């Protein structure tokens, strides 16, 4: 089974703190994604990565950065956390072959509260 793990289920931080959210997948997937999920807004893509050291902005990258130094690990960084970044953060991974696109496999999510 594909496993996507996230470093914390719940996290509470103060405004202005630097926050790291870690995601690890164990199936050698090329593609990794970070979403935030808010009630009534569904899932919105923050950043994604198709390969090590590559990153692409999603729909709402402002206030976030990412790092992918190893294929299995994709980190989301909040440089200076703000209260409007209180949300559920979901990580996902997927693979792509020339003729097939896999579904995305999701981690359990990190519920971040910024006070």
């Amino acid at each position, binding site marked *: 089974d594909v496993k996507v793990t996230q470093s914390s289920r719940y996290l509470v931080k103060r405004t202005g703190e630097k926050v790291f959210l870690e995601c690890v997948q164990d199936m050698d997937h090329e593609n990794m994604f970070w979403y935030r999920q808010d009630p*009534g807004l569904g*899932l919105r893509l923050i950043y*994604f990565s198709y390969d090590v050291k590559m990153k692409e902005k999603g729909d709402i990258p402002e206030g976030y950065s990412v790092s992918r130094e190893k294929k299995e690990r994709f980190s989301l960084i909040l440089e200076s956390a703000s209260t409007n970044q209180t949300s559920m953060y979901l990580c996902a991974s997927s693979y792509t072959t020339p003729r097939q696109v896999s579904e995305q496999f999701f981690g*359990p999510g990190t519920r971040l509260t910024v006070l």
Partner: protein
Amino acid sequence: AQTVTQSQPEMSVQEAETVTLSCTYDTSESDYYLFWYKQPPSRQMILVIRQEAYKQQNATENRFSVNFQKAAKSFSLKISDSQLGDAAMYFCAWSRPTPLVFGKGTRLSVIA
């Protein structure tokens, strides 16, 4: 930009009955993928069913089936013989191939 619309924020169904969740999308692409994901309360998001746009046959997975109408850009999910464990948020998503574009979700309640 591609958009996915789920017009039913909440739905309910009696146990053992059938329910249909609607999804429409907007794209100018001809080759793409559609997905339904399920997110149970406080649990991980999992794939329910997928459909490749080039396939005319509707996908089925046990009690779950889709009605894919490419010309109408519609992709509804039918759940037959609903069970208490079907209670969850359901998200429709579009991809070509990645990343996914999600709808805002439909919260399904199952009444015993």
